[in-house]
């Protein structure tokens, strides 16, 4: 069968093989997991179960349960002072991933360019290509893994349609303060470039208050804001995300969503609605726990000689491993083979050579044991 050329071209082969190696191995301590190690707080699970008992087993409105959209409307208003109408400015999606795919398909005409600062989460480029757009990858590794107005200006041309911002960032943990975002926003407004803001780790920001991009001056009409329940509420498997943005864009996304997905599972939506009502305390508790692990792991990595700046959000550390003389893939492979510790090579995320991603969404006991092993591994190479 002749497979579509776009799909055939899609990578990543090297990483896939490495992932398979990890999955095939037993007794591995994995610091390579991109999801919380907590299970969903019980009151949220209970709401899902109860909804099943009550017979909520059908479709919902394409846009998502009104109860959930209304909950999100209130939540965003309280937390950020953002006013998105539950009627036509919020769409419930199967995680942020689906939302991003919808948006690319909704806005891209063939040849349109989408800026993707890297290292970044892996789906931005592929969903752009699937929508016949051209991803333009921007190397942020020399700027502390941050996109700057200067870098931005350098990559913008007439075909540039949008940029994908992701902060706090997976895999680097880097986030931005309001001032930095304002500078970025100015450039985007000047060139009429849409901001696609993936803020799924926003609730897990440790050193300062997270700033939602649409709260910046004049940004709301020029931004599609993405968030979800996966990371903050430990609900990855429920698959609930949401997109907020200008009416016309949300309407276009809803059109595609209604033909391809119809709606997110009603059980998951019911649980998500409960998460907004009673889940905040759990979010804060988990965040405090992550924060302690963050401090611990950064301190340990630096003492091993693997230079690591303090991530400001998410649950990843992104240390430099150049001092070992190995490249990212070699380091990850050998660490797995010799010490049975799994990490993700930085190269998986674009422009991450010389770095590895360590997830601290793992118990303190696991982290401690993994670091003992890593110490042994690194010292052999001194």
């Amino acid at each position: 069968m002749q497979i579509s050329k776009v799909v055939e071209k899609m990578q990543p082969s090297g990483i896939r093989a490495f992932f398979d190696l990890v999955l095939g191995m037993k007794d591995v301590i994995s610091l390579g997991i991109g999801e919380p190690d907590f299970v969903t707080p019980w009151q949220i699970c209970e709401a899902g179960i109860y909804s099943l008992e009550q017979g909520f087993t059908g479709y919902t409105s394409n846009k998502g349960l009104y109860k959930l959209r209304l909950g999100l409307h209130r939540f965003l208003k309280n937390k950020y002072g953002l006013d998105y109408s539950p009627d036509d400015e919020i769409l419930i999606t199967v995680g942020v991933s689906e939302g991003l795919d919808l948006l690319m398909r909704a806005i891209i005409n063939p040849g349109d360019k989408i800026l993707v600062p890297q290292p970044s989460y892996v789906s931005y480029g592929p969903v752009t290509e699937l929508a016949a757009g051209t991803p333009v990858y921007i190397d942020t590794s020399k700027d502390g893994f941050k996109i700057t107005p200067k870098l931005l200006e350098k990559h913008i041309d007439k075909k540039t349609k949008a940029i994908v911002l992701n902060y706090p960032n997976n895999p680097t943990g880097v986030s931005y303060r309001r001032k930095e975002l304002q500078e970025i926003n100015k450039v985007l407004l000047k060139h009429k470039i849409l901001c696609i803001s993936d803020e799924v780790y926003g609730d897990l920001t440790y050193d300062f208050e997270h700033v939602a991009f649409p709260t910046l001056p004049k940004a709301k009409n020029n931004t599609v804001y993405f968030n979800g329940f996966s990371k903050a509420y430990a609900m990855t498997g429920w698959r609930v995300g949401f997109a907020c943005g200008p009416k016309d864009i949300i309407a276009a996304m809803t059109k595609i969503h209604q033909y391809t997905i119809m709606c997110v599972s009603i059980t998951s939506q019911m649980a998500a609605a409960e998460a907004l009502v009673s889940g905040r305390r759990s979010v804060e508790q988990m965040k405090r726990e992550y924060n302690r692990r963050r401090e611990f792991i950064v301190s340990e990595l630096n003492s091993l000689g693997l230079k690591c700046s303090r991530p400001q959000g998410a649950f990843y550390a992104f240390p430099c491993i150049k001092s070992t003389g190995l490249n990212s893939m070699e380091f990850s492979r050998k660490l797995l083979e010799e010490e049975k510790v799994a990490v993700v090579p930085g190269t998986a995320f674009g422009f991450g050579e010389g770095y590895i991603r360590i997830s601290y969404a793992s118990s303190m006991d696991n982290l401690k044991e993994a670091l003992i092993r890593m110490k042994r591994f690194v010292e052999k190479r001194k």
Partner: protein
Amino acid sequence: MDEILEILEKDGRASIEDIAKMTRNKPEDVKKAIKKYEKEGAILKYKAVINKDLIRENESEVRALIEVNILPQKDLGFEKIAERIYSFPEVTSCYLISGTYDLLVVVEGKSLHTVANFVAEKLACLEHVRGTATHFLLKKYKEDGVILKQKSENKRIAISY
């Protein structure tokens, strides 16, 4: 609550070095803070939470929750009588509560008989105790925030973006 206390409440064996790293403090400062908490009595004791169901030789241990109705004393209220009750070594916990009775007393003993004896001979006959109701504990599901079930295995896939 202070971060150090929060960590210790979850893991009484957390080392000073680890706590220092987790809270971005110097080990000396953590040590000092803990000493202070111990001195003030904010930290009373370090102990393990044990699932006694899994310890065979201990299977005869019996626990009872006892509701105690009390006639409060002039000037002293419940304090004096509470002290007389919680001073018994058989009493593991003692709370003053609102509602239809006054003290909730947790008693541990070797057998049903010992606990019953304690109630009849020590507790119920105290002056000012107007009545008691004893509830024997049949099964423990959760204690001090810990669910008493063996840990379940990891359910996440080993690597993901």
